[in-house]
């Protein structure tokens, strides 16, 4: 059962194609994210689902029924706006009751529903407060409560964490995921922050220049990206351009620009006859020391970037490349200026044809 289905949706603004032939299904009760850089068309796509824009081609179905002819206020998809758009002239309670009153719920039931939803988002008793009295995280929860009280088929979230400071954002990520479990509603979340998408989602679609590059569970995107764009956008990667010298046993021998030669596995879809490639290696795939198989490079430690479990060693190779190597909590014990060998296994390096989708 799919709550939301988009079928070859296309939207053009003049000669610019904002959303290009996008299709996807979101299973009921799942958390689906659309991840892409700003300007990739993800907001336009969301606005079409909410009904603020009309697609030029394609169809949008909610619970199996096309909603293209429905006005925004007739669609049972609710939206949490980027800056939340809470009504400043109403109290918290009035904000939440607004939708219920528009729907024509009986006055006697509204108060109970408002209290119930405030309980569920963990803010009981704030209904008489003004919006300006709430903290950033509280506003966030009220914006979600205002939508959830209407029991939507799909909840759309348009980068709602963007305005929060880092600490609160980390906290709200977990909280959003828990709220989604609790309400068992389908969430469609759009963001340019890959860690938000990876942490919260059941499925992520990576969008670039109006198209979906890949749809899949976060782990899949991270480990088996289908394109150079996905490999570069999702998670951290070392990224080098180069040329394929020769292929053997499905492994490419790549001569990197500026020297060095490495082994890499062509990504899904193969390389075709593309000789110009980009090689992606995750920092955590690289270990310090020489390896029996795979690829070994030598260099010197340029600097140490301590960041707890995300610490990195920056290694400068003989040819001047800077390579990020994961160094959990600085356990490797190397010092700046040390000569060092690094290696990775051939299958941990992926290469994609340059410029190919």
């Amino acid at each position, binding site marked *: 059962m799919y709550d939301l289905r988009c079928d070859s949706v296309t939207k053009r603004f003049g000669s610019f194609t904002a959303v290009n032939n996008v299709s996807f299904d979101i299973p009921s009760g799942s958390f689906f994210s659309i991840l892409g850089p700003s300007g990739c068309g993800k907001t336009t796509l969301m606005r079409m689902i*909410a*009904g*603020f824009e009309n697609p030029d081609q394609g169809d949008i179905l909610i619970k199996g029924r096309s909603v293209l002819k429905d*006005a*925004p*206020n007739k669609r049972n*998809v*609710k*939206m949490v*706006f*980027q*800056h939340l*758009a*809470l*009504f*400043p*002239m*109403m109290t918290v309670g009035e904000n939440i009751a*607004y*939708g219920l009153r*528009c*729907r024509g719920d009986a006055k006697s039931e509204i108060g109970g529903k408002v209290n119930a939803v405030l309980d569920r988002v963990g803010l009981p008793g704030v209904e008489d407060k003004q919006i300006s009295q709430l903290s950033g995280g509280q506003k966030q929860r009220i914006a979600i409560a*205002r*939508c959830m009280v*209407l029991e939507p088929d799909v909840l759309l979230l348009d980068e709602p964490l963007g305005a929060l400071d880092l600490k609160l954002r980390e906290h709200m990520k977990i909280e959003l995921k828990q709220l989604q479990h609790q309400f068992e509603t389908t969430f469609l979340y759009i963001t340019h922050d890959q860690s938000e998408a990876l942490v919260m989602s059941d499925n992520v679609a990576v969008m670039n220049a109006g198209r979906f590059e890949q749809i899949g569970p976060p782990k899949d995107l991270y480990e088996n990206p289908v394109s150079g764009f996905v490999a570069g956008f999702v998670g951290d990667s070392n990224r080098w351009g180069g040329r394929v010298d020769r292929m053997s046993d499905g492994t490419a021998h790549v001569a990197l620009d500026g020297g060095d030669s490495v082994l890499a596995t062509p990504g899904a879809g193969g390389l075709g006859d593309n000789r110009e490639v980009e090689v992606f290696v995750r920092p955590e795939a690289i270990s310090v020391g020489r390896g029996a198989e795979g690829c070994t490079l030598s260099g010197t430690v340029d600097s140490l970037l301590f960041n707890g479990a995300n610490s990195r060693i920056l290694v400068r190779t003989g040819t001047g490349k800077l390579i990020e190597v994961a160094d959990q909590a600085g356990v490797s014990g190397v010092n700046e200026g040390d000569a060092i060998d690094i290696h990775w296994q051939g299958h941990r390096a992926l290469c994609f044809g340059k410029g190919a989708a």
Partner: protein
Amino acid sequence: MRSDAGKLSLILLMAPFALWILLLIVLPQLGIGYVSLREKVGPGQFTFGFGNYMDFLGEPIYWNTLLRTAWMSILVTILALLVGFPVAYYIAKIARQRSRAALFLLCLIPLWVSDLVRAFGWIVLLRETGLVSGALQWAGLISGPVELLYNDVTVVIGLVYTVVLFMIVPLVSTLDGMDDALLEAGYNLGGSRFTVFRRIIVPYAMPGIVAGCIITFMLTAGSYLTPILLGGKNSSWFTEQIYNQFITRYNWEAGATFGVLLLGFTSLVIWLGLKLTGQSLATTVAKD
């Protein structure tokens, strides 16, 4: 030292404004108030008391004129709001960024021409031998010339035309600050166009609406040229009474009394308006 310099610059910067307020507003008003309490008992002989105010209450033509002025000013204010709101909404929310400034400037252009000339403009259009009368005759809709001046409708139209700009400006600035996402959220949560207008746009714009209403009401009630020129002898505008007392009848005491009464009465109307809409001066006219 720093705070002394700060104090000095505050005094120097505020001095022209303070002098202006003191010399041109406060002192004359005190003078008017003083004169209004003076009763003439003989040539050059005065006593103090509320006799002038009693005279006002005892003469129905006086307080009827004041009430009529207040009612017509309220009517003009409401009409200016009805005319000005869509214009302001268009400028602030619908027009593109580039045409916005041009449209706003278009609203200001009438101010480049003096009140007097603009009132004569209406006279040129509406008099018996004017453009409108001529056009109607040419079209065969009326058989003879028709006088469109010197009636209440013309006065109201002329006043709305004069003051509507002062309604538009505060409305544009309030509506301009409204995030479009609020409207979209209003629709998204199930509101119809009417609901969004009534529950989101109007409450949001309320400070601007009230500020615009206060300014237009005060300007209208205190206007002189437009009602006199377009309404003629029938206009019975309260400022005309004040003028008559001061200039024609040389009765400064009565004129001063009327002046105080006009100020007091319009202030009362505005206070009532603020109470009814639940706003205060701090949230409307004095809003930054």
